[in-house]
């Protein structure tokens, strides 16, 4: 069992614990070359009256090829928060896994959860530790969103590759389709939307991004694959069912046919 002398005790940090036992995935020197690894793309998050909505498409690409059609870029971090990731799929998934573990590890060691702001800060440190890899093309740019149980409203954070952490008040988009998805949000978002309106808007934003950006996947009715959309409210994290998204996308498609 890992036990440490007082001065070397990693406390409640899972990342530090991994370093002490020699398992840390960060800071390794990856040889610089033109390695083609899968990249995950567009994610959005927006604030609603009683929480937040997060959404991400399902496509991962390696250059011009689609390498994965069912990637889940929006994942639950804990009961009241979620992470959406864009960037190199391998490091991104590893970062999310570590982040989930860190939150749970802290909660178990300390006997209470980190605050939402504490979690956002922690994720920023993870992104920063990935900087050497980001310089070589394995960039990871997440969005963090959740329901702040202390302030009793939803909050969103955007990050850059250096670990810069920016709290956004209204909405945020990341990944290759961020310009198109962000424009849809910018034009349609309004204050105090309901969660249902938020889900529809997020679905629409991803639709437009997939329409104009080849790396963003649209709804795939043939295979029954729809974007991952989740709401986070005082009730917790809820993933919207594919059945509902199917109807949402049929309505969007009908609207597009008529315009």
């Amino acid at each position, binding site marked *: 069992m890992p036990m440490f002398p007082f001065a070397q005790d990693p406390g409640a940090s899972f990342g530090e*614990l991994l370093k002490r036992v020699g*398992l840390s995935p960060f800071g390794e020197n990856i040889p610089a070359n033109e390695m083609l690894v899968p990249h995950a793309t567009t994610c959005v998050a927006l604030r609603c009256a009683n929480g937040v909505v997060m959404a991400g498409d399902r496509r991962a690409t390696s250059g011009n090829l689609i390498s994965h059609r069912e990637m889940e870029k929006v994942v639950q971090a804990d009961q009241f928060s979620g992470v959406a990731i864009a960037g190199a799929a391998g490091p991104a998934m590893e970062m999310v896994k570590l982040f989930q573990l860190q939150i749970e590890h802290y909660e*178990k*060691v300390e006997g209470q959860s980190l605050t939402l702001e504490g979690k956002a800060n922690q994720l920023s440190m993870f992104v920063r530790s990935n900087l050497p890899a980001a310089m070589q093309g394995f960039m990871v740019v997440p969005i963090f969103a959740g329901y702040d149980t202390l302030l009793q409203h939803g909050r969103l954070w955007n990050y850059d590759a250096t670990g810069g952490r920016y709290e956004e008040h209204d909405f945020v988009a990341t990944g290759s389709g961020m310009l198109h998805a962000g424009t849809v949000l910018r034009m349609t978002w309004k204050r105090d939307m309901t969660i249902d309106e938020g889900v529809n808007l997020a679905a629409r934003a991803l639709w437009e991004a997939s329409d104009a950006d080849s790396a963003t996947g649209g709804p795939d009715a043939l295979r029954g694959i729809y974007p991952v959309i989740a709401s986070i409210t005082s009730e917790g994290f809820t993933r919207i069912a594919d059945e509902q998204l199917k109807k949402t996308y049929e309505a969007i498609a009908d609207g597009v046919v008529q315009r």
Partner: protein
Amino acid sequence: MSMPFYVAPEQMMKDRADYARKGIARGRALVALQYNDGIALVAENPSNTLRKISEIYDRIAFAGVGKYNEFDQLRVAGVRAADLKGYQFSRLDVDARGLANQYAQILGQTFTHEMKPLEVEILVAEVGLDATKDQLFHIMYDGTVIDEHRFTVLGGDMESIRGRLVEIFVPDSTLQDAVKFAHQALSVGDTPISSTELEVAVLVRNGARRCFSRLNESTITQFLS
């Protein structure tokens, strides 16, 4: 230079065991028992923040009696071992038996090699997919591991509490009844322990990933009324 006095190994071990037992007997006891939907852990604990029972992993709980700082250190080591194993391999590879063995190693080592034995008794409980796979590992201050069934009692006055629990315990009861059994068994004489002095947590067989949860004070009061 003065020579240390010779002490027979038997005497040394006996002294250490007495010392540990005395330390543990000063603290208050704890009961863990199976009920129809999982495992209930009930401790007499006046503090609402310094916990005796806590979560180690998805299906595994930890409970300790005796010296707080000592079992808390063991608890944190257990969380670390479990999280590392789950990260390195799979979450399903983390089991109570492995943790119990590691705890036994630490307690046994400390008992024979250190100046002072750890004044703790700990429990590693795992809720299985069905009741036959539930596991209760009771680990003593000297590293002895006891694989218990249905229920277990830790801490001071263990024999009399166990005696009372054997009389009233009914297998496959509801959670409320299980908490009542534990409460009755822990209460000495005619004065029942106040519900504010009970710490109750459960490992529920509910299909969710994390099975551990605590019962709040109002639920405990309601259960006992």
